[in-house]
């Protein structure tokens, strides 16, 4: 009976790797062409000069930095779900962990690309790395951008390893089930994994340490991204709340992205038996909690600014709430708070479709939130003579859309090459073996005494 379960799990979860329909190729082609357009647009920007964007005095950061913060925020999905649920040993995490960790890795890669895209001279981005140069000059460690470099490098390394380690036993499984060149590739990827008790223990110990280590790294990464703003004397940027505010927002958008990705995977890879409505419900409850937490931070920040009456800050507050940015601001409130609150707190609406709807609105709302942090403040700094407005140009819009396509493309390709649900972890959860009693355990020790 248990063997049947095992075989069914393996077959179901390996099917996407083995069977490919024309729909897959069509999707890859469409997404690939959007990504290629984005790349071509970026090179067009480098060739023609940064002026083809909508950036202007005094709004020197806009869409690209919004995207940067947005994608780094999305990357908190994997860590928090995977690492925290692993540490508290929540059983329902098992089908969810790899979906989440994959989002982290790809979102980080895309997010890390944006500081390069937004540079005036991007071919010199390597000056952010500390290397002994012939000029004997090093990066300025006082700059939050250098902190970004270190934080994102650490987090990316950690996330890739956190994703890759539990993939090793699954690669061994794919190796066993495949033939020909595929077998050779997966045999190499599985590093000769056997599954001895020692290997399992080492793997699980390593996963435990990684889970403990990756959480402070994740918190620090988005805190450091928030420091890009809070270290500058710009009205409504120079706020001490930015660290926790951004981390909460990141977790918030990360969970939303995870729900969307899981729903897509469930639908297109026919994994209805493994991703149950209860998984979505649990994540939906987490999403609701994060929505309230986000709203709490926004309220605390805005109340302080409104109450404090500092003229420059108040100006930025009003321009978002009542001025030219008001439509975007109130859309954000509806998307981030009202819709999730209604949909996710009523059990009847907290279905898979409901959770996915709420997640989509949250993703839109969180993108708007990043935009509304960056642009209104820069447009209304301390000297009114220099205030300005921002309008995005086609370059920025195309590149933004192409990164969403890139995320979907990477996710699609990944789920074609690697089982999107961690098979061995799922098996452990499906049939836990009977617990031995202490007396029985003692019996075995008698035998062990025999040299």
């Amino acid at each position, binding site marked *: 009976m248990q063997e049947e379960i095992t075989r069914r799990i393996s077959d179901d979860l390996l099917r996407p790797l083995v069977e490919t329909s024309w729909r897959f190729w069509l999707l890859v082609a469409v997404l690939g062409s959007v990504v290629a357009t984005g790349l071509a647009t970026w090179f067009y920007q480098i060739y023609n000069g940064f002026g083809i964007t909508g950036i202007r005095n005094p709004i020197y950061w806009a869409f690209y930095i919004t995207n940067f913060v947005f994608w780094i925020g999305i990357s908190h999905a994997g860590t928090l779900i995977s690492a925290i649920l692993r540490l508290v040993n929540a059983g329902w995490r098992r089908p969810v962990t790899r979906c989440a960790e994959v989002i982290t890795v790809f979102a980080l890669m895309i997010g890390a690309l944006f500081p390069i895209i937004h540079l005036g001279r991007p071919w010199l981005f390597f000056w952010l790395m500390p290397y002994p140069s012939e000029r004997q000059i090093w990066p300025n460690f006082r700059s939050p951008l250098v902190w970004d470099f270190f934080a994102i490098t650490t987090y990316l390394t950690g996330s890739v390893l956190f994703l890759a380690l539990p993939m090793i036993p699954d690669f061994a499984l794919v190796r066993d089930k495949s033939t020909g060149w595929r077998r050779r590739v997966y045999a190499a990827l599985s590093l000769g994994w056997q599954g001895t008790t020692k290997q399992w223990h080492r793997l699980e110990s390593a996963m435990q340490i990684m889970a403990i280590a990756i959480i402070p790294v994740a918190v620090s990464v988005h805190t450091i991204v928030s420091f890009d703003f809070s270290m500058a004397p710009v009205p409504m940027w120079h706020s001490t709340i930015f660290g926790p505010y951004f981390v909460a927002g990141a977790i918030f958008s990360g969970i939303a992205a995870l729900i969307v990705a899981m729903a897509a995977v469930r639908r297109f890879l026919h994994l209805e038996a493994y991703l149950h409505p209860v998984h979505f419900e649990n994540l939906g409850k987490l999403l609701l909690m994060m929505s309230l937490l986000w709203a709490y931070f926004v309220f605390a920040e805005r109340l302080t600014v409104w109450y404090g009456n500092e003229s420059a800050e108040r100006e930025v507050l009003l321009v978002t709430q009542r001025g030219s940015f008001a439509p975007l601001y109130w859309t954000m409130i509806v998307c981030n708070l009202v819709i999730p609150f209604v949909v996710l707190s009523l059990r009847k609406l907290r279905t898979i479709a409901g959770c996915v709807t709420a997640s989509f609105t949250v993703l839109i709302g969180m993108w708007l939130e990043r935009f509304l942090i960056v642009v209104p403040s820069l447009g209304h700094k301390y000297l009114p003579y220099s205030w300005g407005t921002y309008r995005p140009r086609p370059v920025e819009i195309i590149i933004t859309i192409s990164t969403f396509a890139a995320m979907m493309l990477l996710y699609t390709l990944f789920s074609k090459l690697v089982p999107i649900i961690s098979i061995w972890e799922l098996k452990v959860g499906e049939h836990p073996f009977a617990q031995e009693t202490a007396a029985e355990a003692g019996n075995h020790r008698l035998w*062990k005494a025999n040299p």
Partner: protein
Amino acid sequence: MEGESVTAIYALYSDPDHVQRAVDNLRAAGLHDRDIVVISSEPIEEYEFSARDKATWLFYAAGFGGVVGLVFATWLTTMTQKAWPIVTGNMAIVAWWPNMIIMFELTMLGAILATVITMLVAANLPKRGPKLYDPEVADGKILVGIENPPSTSVQSIERALLSGGVARLKKIGARP
């Protein structure tokens, strides 16, 4: 047969209880714990046979890696800031607040890398060359075996493995 020389001898079980009995019988037959190999497609925590090999230096390795990262980061930031002292924003030349951020990140990076490297080394990965394995393990069977058994013990090992319960016995590299 007595005097048979084989590369490995193992049996496949469906039930971890049988595995436990087989392991106990092998111990009774005089084999060391470190010679007995148990292979499965998923970790089986709850049985005694998997309790050996549990102790690990991995946590200490992670700590050591963290310390290495911390020392390196402290050296990197203070050394570079003192090598070419450039004044920025009325801040100190060796700026401790920002340096602490770099120190934190590289500490965590050191811990993470040390954990992964130690784990790969301890788990003997990547493992090239011949290894004891059977594709049926992928279907949920648990393998218990001995690699390079002394030729005199082959029969007693066979008996121990078969007495464990329902099993399929296999030999690798058996010479008639």
